[in-house]
């Protein structure tokens, strides 16, 4: 087995050919598993080794099989419930909440997706990240109105009932906050030790269903002077952003459903704008108004915020597209290795510029790289899951992933990314994430 594994090495420090995990491969039964988030704990392993099976004779006339079956097979199960919940044992899987203004504005802040606890590419609705600027409003859908006005032939209002009669489309897209990964940005000179969800969990993926915005803008009748739109939310921050008309007419959606159910309040119930691949902030939640304008409105969140200061004192403005990005989510901050052996490295990649075409993984701090397998057909501006087998020899090492999109964009090393921007720049951090694996299995965030 040793020699076969060595023959399958595709990069240094144990990265292996993906085919090892396929049917008929040599790894059946030998795959190590990641421990649950938390401390290294060997007691359960010892208990399993020392376990002695009871002697039994299920054929005996005086024997009931109950002695040999788990409790779940001997008592009636729980009754039906109207809306399902995760298993009780998973109750620790929660969004990670940061409230920078404390009690003053408890609804201003973020709730991040716990990426270390999730698999696949669809984020459960209850764990989709939330960035709210002054709390989550409660909106009565029967009273909610949506207005299109400005440089149009005919201003129009729409109720939710009216919108329910429009044609819908469903698409799988990620949404990423422009401030995602700020722990790795120029706000910090040293790496912070938090989970992968806390670093990168301002990104989530979902199937969004809604009305193409172009249909509604066409109905109002665009005037030739109209070049931009101003989108405004019905929250107490009155969130507003300017959006180029080209994007609004291309792939913008008025989203009403999220993974098959009506939007969660955190994601803009009863309707939100969805701009695939753009800064999440622009996909205005609780959408109440679109005004067609000739120029940008220069709102607070496209001038003082969501603009990118460079070392020369100039700031980039309207940097809408989220850059190509990836992170390994297992093993990653918040998880602990379960001893040397064979693992499947798993992670997420995405790009605001289109499809992911390649994700490479390094187990030696970026000296050698191996192509990971992309799980399923990568979709435009959606999360892509990547995987690669890895035999950890138990020695300290550095794990990285590097994504490339169909436009040819590739992630940069953090030091290279950082040098582009001024001190304190936090937006659009899409630098390569490095995870350090220690001899004791602890996974930490490091800057390279």
């Amino acid at each position, binding site marked *: 087995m040793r020699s076969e594994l060595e023959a399958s090495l595709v990069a240094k420090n144990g990265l292996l050919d993906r085919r090892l995990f396929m049917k008929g491969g040599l790894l059946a039964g030998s795959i190590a598993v990641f421990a649950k988030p938390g401390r290294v704990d060997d007691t359960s392993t010892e208990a399993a080794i020392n376990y002695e099976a009871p002697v039994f004779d299920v054929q005996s006339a005086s024997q009931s099989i109950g002695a040999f079956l788990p409790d779940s097979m001997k008592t009636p199960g729980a009754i039906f419930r109207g809306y399902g919940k995760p298993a009780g044992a998973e109750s620790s899987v929660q969004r990670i909440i940061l409230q920078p203004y*404390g009690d*003053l504005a408890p609804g201003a802040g973020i709730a991040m997706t716990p990426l270390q606890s999730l698999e696949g590419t669809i984020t459960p609705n209850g764990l989709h990240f939330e960035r709210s600027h002054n709390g989550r409003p409660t909106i009565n859908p029967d009273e909610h109105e949506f207005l299109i006005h400005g440089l149009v032939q005919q201003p129009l209002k729409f109720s939710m009932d009216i*919108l329910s009669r*429009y044609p819908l489309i469903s698409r799988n897209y990620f949404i990423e906050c422009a401030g995602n990964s700020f722990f790795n940005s120029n706000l910090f000179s040293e790496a912070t030790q938090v989970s992968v969800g806390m670093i990168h969990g301002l990104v989530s993926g979902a199937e969004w269903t809604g009305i193409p915005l172009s249909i509604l803008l066409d109905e109002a009748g665009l005037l030739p002077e109209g070049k931009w739109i101003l989108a405004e939310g019905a929250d107490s921050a009155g969130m507003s952003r300017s959006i180029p008309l080209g994007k609004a007419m291309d792939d913008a959606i008025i989203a009403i459903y999220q993974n098959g159910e009506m939007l969660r309040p955190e994601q803009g119930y009863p309707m939100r704008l969805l701009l695939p691949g753009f800064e999440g902030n622009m996909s205005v939640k609780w959408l109440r108004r679109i005004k067609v304008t000739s120029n940008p409105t*220069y709102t607070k969140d496209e*001038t003082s915020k969501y603009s990118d200061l460079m070392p020369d004192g100039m700031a980039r*403005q309207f940097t809408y597209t989220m850059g190509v990005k990836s992170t390994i989510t297992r093993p990653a901050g918040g998880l602990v290795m379960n001893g040397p052996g064979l693992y499947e490295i798993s992670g997420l990649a995405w790009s605001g510029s289109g499809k992911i075409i390649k994700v490479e993984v390094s187990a030696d701090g970026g000296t050698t790289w191996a192509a990971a397998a992309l799980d399923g057909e990568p979709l435009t501006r959606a999360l892509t899951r990547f995987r690669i087998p890895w035999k950890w020899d138990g020695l300290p090492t550095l794990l990285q992933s590097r994504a490339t999109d169909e436009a040819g964009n590739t992630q940069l090393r953090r030091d290279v990314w950082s040098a582009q921007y001024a001190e304190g720049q936090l937006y659009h951090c899409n630098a390569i994430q490095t995870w350090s694996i220690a001899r004791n299995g602890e996974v930490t965030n490091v800057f390279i």
Partner: protein
Amino acid sequence: MSLFKNFRLPVFFIGFIFSGVALGGELQGPKLGVPVEAGTLSGWDISIGPDGRGLPDGEGDSRSGFTVFTERCLRCHGQRGAGGLGLADPLVGGIGSLATDEPLKTVGSYWPYATTIFDYIRRAMPYDAPASLTNSEVYAVTAYILAQNGIIGEVDAINAVTLPMVRMPNRDGFVMFWPEEDRK
């Protein structure tokens, strides 16, 4: 609430749904938007761009703004808007710092348009009671912030005419990054 409470699906619409092409450009809607008169929308249209169109009546200066600031803003933004509670942004100072090793982004040093101050305060501040300041109070506290930054004088009135004329120090400090094809 049911989205389909009053659902009356016309026959042509069923045929349309199942034509199957799911691209906005090839779909068309049933045209059910309710027409409204453009002149009746002043209560809806609260956004103010750099041209100042839509700015309301009223005015204020730094002296009247000091009163509003002290009562409604100081708690978080600190004395003279220099920064205070937690992560509440400093509003004053930092002019000339952007190209240094310690850039300080404030309203005075960073924001390109004064109209943005009015728009944002009026819709979103203070956090515990958004949209509660009168238009004149918003003008006044805008004037106070501008004056603390040395951009206008203590007695300069800010109103619908004067606000769009204020030239912010960092007006030319931004590089447009959109459209992407133009930036290369």
